[in-house]
């Protein structure tokens, strides 16, 4: 009996170890595959010149610029709004039904598929407000998409600020707003920044929301205003992988683009992890 129990335990545990290993292998397969094929394509020239020969050679510079524009635009829109919203729910609203309702709505917003944001962005920003296919429309759409992420990370950052900071500040005669501005926000800043960096990683990889709001297949020149269309990295990868003039010939460019995207996400994740660790230590020292 005892033997039987031991044996089934050993089998089960072995199975779970194998599964754990398998998932890690899948991860390395994906990363390794893209890195192996893409590393040869990436060079300084690849990152700083435009596409040539019907996307089969040349670089991805306009797509990088486009993605930077979109990231900047959507962060400018979503970050202040998200932080303000989180400050309201965390510092002002207490634990009333309003807060619960707002939290449920934030959760719901984050579960809406990105293509639905694309539809919505097209209906509201591109058509109803008349922005056309533009950086403005794309940034607002992406901003809405990333808003729940900003709100959630900011809320967590605010919650991590010890309660004594608040009571201490209020006891010294500061008003609530002064407490928030001078005490709570500075204390929460590192964690808020972490959320910001994660949001940037998320925005730079989204394709579906920009399909119909901003992305262009090919543009010979860089954007001049927020009402211009741009190329963007994820959309560029999608078109050259599926519908370029010569799909096979543009594979190296596609691998290079995929690797660039992965590197951006990797960099943002590492940066966020580093910040978390660095400031985490600092707080402990205090």
């Amino acid at each position, binding site marked *: 009996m005892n033997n039987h129990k031991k044996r089934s335990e050993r089998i089960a545990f072995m199975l779970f170890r194998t599964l754990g290993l398998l998932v890690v292998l899948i991860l390395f397969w994906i990363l390794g595959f893209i890195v192996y094929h893409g590393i040869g394509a990436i060079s300084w020239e690849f990152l700083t010149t435009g596409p040539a020969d019907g996307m089969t050679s040349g670089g991805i510079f306009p797509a990088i610029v486009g993605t930077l524009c979109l990231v900047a635009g959507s962060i400018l829109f979503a970050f202040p709004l998200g932080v*303000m919203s989180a400050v309201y729910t965390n510092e002002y609203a207490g634990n009333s039904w309003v807060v619960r309702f707002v939290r*449920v709505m934030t959760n719901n917003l984050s579960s809406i598929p*990105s*293509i639905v944001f694309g539809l*919505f962005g097209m209906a509201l920003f591109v058509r109803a407000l008349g922005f056309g296919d533009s950086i403005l429309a794309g940034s607002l759409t992406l901003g809405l998409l990333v808003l729940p992420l900003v709100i959630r990370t900011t809320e967590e950052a605010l919650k991590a600020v010890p309660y004594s900071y608040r009571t201490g500040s209020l006891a010294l005669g500061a008003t609530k707003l002064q407490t928030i501005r001078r005490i709570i926000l500075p204390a929460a800043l590192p964690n808020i920044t972490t959320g910001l960096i994660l949001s940037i990683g998320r925005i730079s990889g989204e394709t579906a929301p920009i399909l119909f709001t901003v992305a262009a297949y090919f543009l010979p020149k860089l954007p001049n205003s927020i009402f211009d269309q741009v190329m963007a990295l994820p959309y560029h990868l999608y078109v050259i*992988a599926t519908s370029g003039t010569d799909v096979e010939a543009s594979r190296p460019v596609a691998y290079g683009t995929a690797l660039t995207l*992965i590197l951006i*996400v990797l960099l943002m*994740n590492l940066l966020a992890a580093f910040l978390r660790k660095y400031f985490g230590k600092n707080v402990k020292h205090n």
Partner: protein
Amino acid sequence: MKRFIERIIESLLTVSGGITSVAILLIIIFLFKEGIGLFGSPTVEKGYSLCVHSTNRVSSLTVKEIKRVFDGEITSWETLGGADEEIMPFRFETVFSRYSDEELGENYRLLTDKLGQLIGDHPNIIAFLPQQFVPVDVPGVKVLAEKHVSVADFFGGNEWMPTATPSPLFGVVPLIVGTLIVSIVAILIALPLGLGVAIYLSELAGERTRKWMKPAIELLAGIPSVVYGFFGLVALVPVVQQTLRLPVGETAFTGSLLLAIMALPTIITVAEDAMRNTPRTVREASLALGATNWQTIYKVVIPYSASGISAAVVLGIGRATGETMAVLMVTGNAAVMPRSLFDAVRTIPATIAAELGEAPAGGAHYQALFLLGCILFVITMIVSVSAEMIAKKQQKQQKGQ
């Protein structure tokens, strides 16, 4: 003065607190406003009408009937409730091969008259004409009554042909079936894998393994879906094609595999959190009673974290149904009813992404795609709300103990 500014800032904060609710409200309004419009649009392509001879007893046709008439599947008026005569379908384009430019006159001035004559001469004709050339008030010509796309056509139709003429078909069933197949199979693959890894991470792995493995899995969640799609296209599709000896590798199954990989991080993290929340006392009680570690896991820890695990499943399904780019790139994009798991399919999000660019804004096709968006929105809302309810149940359960 200072107080006044503070008041302003505080009310600004209050307003921004409602931003997500406003966003959802706007999404609902714009999505449904465009989507519902489909049911008011005519079944025949916009700006066109169908005309028959005035002696014809048939006065209106359904979408399906129109399509089958012009595809040559229905050849007799009798089938449609008319006389036992052969149907003569007539498309507007063919008018130019029938009449010379002189006969049609300058700027096609005589075109309408010629069409009136043509219909009058052929009692069995059914003509598909642009509205500006329809011969109105000409004896012998009857314009078929305009019908509107019905709810039953949309939700019950099993053909999705949004660009067919004269009447596009918006049957959503193949798309829903495609979405369901792809995401259910994905969950069936991802669930055992994900649970296994969650058990490994929370119960077996050492602290050091956990420390690098969790961020690695989170990284897997951070990779953009278009990169997954590209990976699927160049790596997974050939593998599936060769190992299963299929004519093409772009199938529902390939999509499921890719979605399973993409859903794994969500399932693993949520399930692992739930398992680690099992109180130590509960575990120790089980071990003290002589149970082995494995028995404790599957008889105590898993039942205890059941609601957390189901939340993981629900969230995984939500992520899988809404995923667009990856699925679009590997499932072969055929908007037809799949006969097996190894056929090409088209999911709802992939259809929107693939077709919205070509659909003229405001037209029936455009509205149909928005209605697909509404379906997707409703599905994800149900998923998200049920995940929340499950999580709440878990909290209550834990408070009770």
